[in-house]
């Protein structure tokens, strides 16, 4: 497949025939990312193989979105090594994406102090695994481990704001962005439980 413009590729994303991967770190993705993209942060060890496993037997063409050419090229090489076709690479970051007139999605960031002050206004969703909950949860939070989220979407309410929390704020950033794509009103709790507990905010023992 010849290289194509961002607009052409995004048309195919909308038709569902291709996938756009934002390979930036979760925090950067949460701050701003191409609307409709999925986050799969690039790292050096067997990254392409991990993407392949996550595709679960399907093999759609994958587009890459990165902040710079070094990451973009490394991610492309890694995918191609894993036998994935990469017809589209964008290495100009969010700035370039906006300059090209393409839509950007953002997830609202919430500090632990802001969350404490407005705790009654949010449904707090703790996406850590059950074995991580010994340190306590935010009072009133519901526990839905990241891997169970898709199956338990009915426990969420599109009419209400959600605050997504994990241990450090990385997983929650990915989850929040994904929920936002599904039409939920979500915010990511920056720093997660490490900062919540570090600030000596109240916890409920499970």
């Amino acid at each position: 497949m010849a290289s194509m413009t961002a607009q052409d590729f995004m048309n195919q994303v909308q038709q569902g025939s291709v996938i756009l991967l934002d390979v930036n770190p979760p925090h950067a993705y949460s701050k701003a990312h191409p609307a409709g993209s999925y986050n799969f942060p690039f790292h050096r060890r067997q990254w392409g193989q991990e993407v392949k496993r996550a595709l679960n037997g399907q093999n759609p063409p994958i587009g890459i979105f990165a902040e710079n050419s070094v990451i973009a090229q490394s991610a492309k090489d890694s995918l191609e090594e894993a036998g994935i076709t990469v017809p589209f690479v964008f290495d100009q970051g969010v700035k370039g994406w906006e300059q090209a007139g393409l839509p950007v999605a953002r997830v609202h960031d919430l500090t632990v102090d802001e969350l404490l002050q407005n705790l009654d206004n949010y449904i707090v969703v703790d996406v850590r695994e059950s074995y991580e909950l010994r340190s306590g949860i935010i009072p009133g939070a519901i526990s839905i481990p990241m891997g169970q989220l898709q199956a338990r979407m009915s426990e969420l309410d599109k009419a209400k704001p959600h605050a997504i929390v994990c241990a450090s704020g990385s997983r929650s950033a990915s989850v929040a962005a994904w929920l936002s794509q599904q039409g939920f009103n979500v915010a990511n709790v920056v720093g997660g439980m490490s900062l919540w507990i570090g600030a000596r905010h109240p916890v409920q023992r499970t």
Partner: protein
Amino acid sequence: MIFVPMWDGSLGCASFLLGDEAQGQAMVVDPLGNLGADSYILGAAELGLEITAIVETHVHADHHSAARELSQKTGVPVSLSHRAPVAYDFNPLRQNDTIDLGHVKAVVWETPGHTPDSISLVVTDATRASEPWLILSGDSLFVGDVGRPDLADPTPEMVKAAALDQFHSIRDKILTLPDTCELYPAHYGASACGGLFLSSKPVSTIGYERRWNRFVQFTEPDEFVEQVLMLLKPPPESAAAIRAENLGVAAPV
């Protein structure tokens, strides 16, 4: 805090990638040409960090800097002391300017001596304490030694003045830090920027150096200057050419 020293043992150079895991922001200090700009970009990606600041503790004369290449590839400007005589656009830093990475902050201290544009970065992590946890001391205080004063301008009067600056930077600034503060200089081991007593160990604490660094024991400026000048090694052969390249100017003939 995420803190990753990146060493080049062949030249005895240290560079650093440090960041705030909660905000996902990172700073690269003194990136080394020998390691290559890409290693910092990929290293940051590995740790889930976005590079938001690139800092040089001074214009180096002993090794090629990767700062400008890293800047071109990331779109992040290079930050240097406002006194740096470089020929390219940079973000000027002054005493007490803060590089804010979230809970992790680096405060700029001007510590001239090795060069007039030498700075140190005093780093705190607010999730631990407001007290400085470590200092990136550049070429001011080394482990067992101090940065040589003769590479920026080798004329004897200037070297003497620079050595005196070094005395005050170390005594009046760096040694005011608490003993528990860790010391990460820009050089160790075989580096051409140190002298006879430069340790092969790249890391120390303020407390250990306060007690055992021979140059810190001199309370009189003249004594310090005399000892530093007496123990100078010959300058590295290519110093002037490397410095010119890092300044972004043509090499002197």
